């Protein structure tokens, strides 16, 4: 008995299947990461020669690619993203507060709003471009200006902001609310003084990710006059504009190789902006994880 027992506990064969499976899974992750690395290395390599102050100090030029820069696109992006934040963050956060704190989920209209937001989150961005073109640029007559682009992008990322903010609000324990109500606070006092401060990190994370999405969007802006030679910094909501992704698209479609290097450099610039935004979001999220 003892002898057979002994054999039975010992590995009978090399578990090749298990080993191979693990390797394949690891490979899947590795391929995705390798792709990212290749992409980054490629654009940095291609754009290296143009990664200098010319990139953000000069305006675009189609005569002299060696002198051209993305100044107008960089500042245009800052304008558009800034205005997008101004439009969509208050609306998104207030909407999330309504849905989490006020809405009675047994009511059909509140459920409709929720369903609607989930659906909006997956509608292709180019469809928002159509919305911006048909309703905002032409319908409201804002034309192809910063305000049109900002409103369109706001609507595009609004569902992301709402969904993230709702989750952040939901993560605030009910006990905190009870404590506040128990002291005679009104609903809004409870929300404003207790719920929101606690939910801010989560909201910030979602909002930054939403804005970084907006910062990289090009498709809807194609329909909104983004593809234009603009050699100035916007000075208002009704000003013409161009943004980095569109400028990149414009340069990619140029045929001269020097423009491709330039577009790589601009891609690096855009990626820096976006990865920085993402890192801030991840940092905020990690830092605020263990509260309760």
């Amino acid at each position, binding site marked *: 008995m003892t002898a057979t027992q002994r054999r039975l506990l010992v590995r009978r064969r090399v578990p090749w299947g298990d080993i191979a499976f693990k390797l394949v899974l690891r490979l899947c992750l590795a391929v995705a990461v390798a792709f990212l690395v290749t992409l980054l290395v490629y654009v940095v390599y291609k754009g290296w020669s143009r990664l200098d102050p010319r990139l953000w100090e000069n305006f675009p030029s189609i005569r002299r690619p060696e002198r051209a820069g993305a100044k107008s696109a960089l500042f245009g992006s800052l304008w558009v993203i800034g205005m997008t934040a101004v439009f969509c963050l208050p609306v998104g956060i207030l909407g999330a507060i309504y849905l989490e704190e006020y809405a*009675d989920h047994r009511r059909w209209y509140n459920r409709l709003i929720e369903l609607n937001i989930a659906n909006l989150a997956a509608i292709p961005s180019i469809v928002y471009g159509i919305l911006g073109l048909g309703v905002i640029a032409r319908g409201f007559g804002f034309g192809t200006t910063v305000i049109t682009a900002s409103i369109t992008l706001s609507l595009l990322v609004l569902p992301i902001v709402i969904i993230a903010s709702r989750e952040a609000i939901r993560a605030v324990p009910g006990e905190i609310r009870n404590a506040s109500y128990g*002291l005679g606070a009104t609903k809004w006092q409870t929300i404003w003084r207790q719920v929101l401060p606690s939910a801010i990190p989560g909201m910030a994370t979602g909002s930054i990710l939403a804005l970084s999405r907006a910062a990289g969007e090009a498709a809807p802006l194609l329909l909104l006059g983004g593809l234009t030679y603009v050699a100035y910094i916007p000075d208002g909501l009704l000003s013409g504009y161009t943004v980095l992704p569109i400028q990149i698209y414009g340069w990619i479609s140029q045929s001269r190789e020097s423009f491709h290097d330039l577009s790589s450099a601009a891609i690096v610039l855009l990626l820096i902006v976006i990865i920085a935004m993402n890192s801030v979001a991840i940092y905020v999220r990690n830092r605020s994880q263990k509260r309760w």
Partner: protein
Amino acid sequence: MAPSQLPDLFDPVFTLQDLSVFYGDYEAVRGVNMRIAPQEITALIGPSGCGKSTVLRCLNRMNDLILDARVAGKVTYYTEDLYGESVDPIEVRRRIGMVFQKPNPFPKSVFDNIAYGPRINGQRRGLDEIVEEALHRAALWDEVKDKLKQNALALSGGQQQRLCIARAIAVKPDVILMDEPCSALDPIATTKIEDLMQVLSRDYTIVIVTHNMQQAARVSERTAFFTAEVDERGERHGRLVEFDSTARIFSNPADKRTEGYITGRFG
């Protein structure tokens, strides 16, 4: 239950007349009649699910915050109908404070926790004194006087719970409701809170829910024993079985069920 077996020895702070509470269609508590005396500790005891918390929440209209909760019968606060048309539940909760089972300090400084109540009532000055007084009364001052700016979440559980009591006191309520305020605490912290309750009961009317009979026996003057009864349709409803002086309830209860529960043979 028939109207309280107690003689009318006091001017009641709360008078519950035929109080029933529904969650949606479910009648969680049925036909409770009782009177709660001022400047005393009243304990609500009974097996889990018998509706103690539900009744307690009726007393400061915290039930309003539960979407489908509904109250029938009458709750009178002194002479005023607590559920009257013109009554403002927010005002109610300011007057009738509440301390919860799990200590729930706000994730802010100790000072801001205590000052929260006065602040939302528009008070801007004299906060230092209010905070100090509330912490003194809650027997917490000595322990936290050097950490007023520190985050309240860094306090120990027992300190947190006393902080919550101090926070409730700071708005100068008439009544303090406590729902199992010690069940998340260790024995030493529990003792401190119980001592505190005794001191506070000189100035405040206190109603406490506890599942710890020893605690009820130790701290309260009067005890209400609730149980859950199954009706003809098989639904469980919380009922008030007996309400009397604590001494009587624990030594010589009138009802068999009370006796069974007290001696551990039931519930």
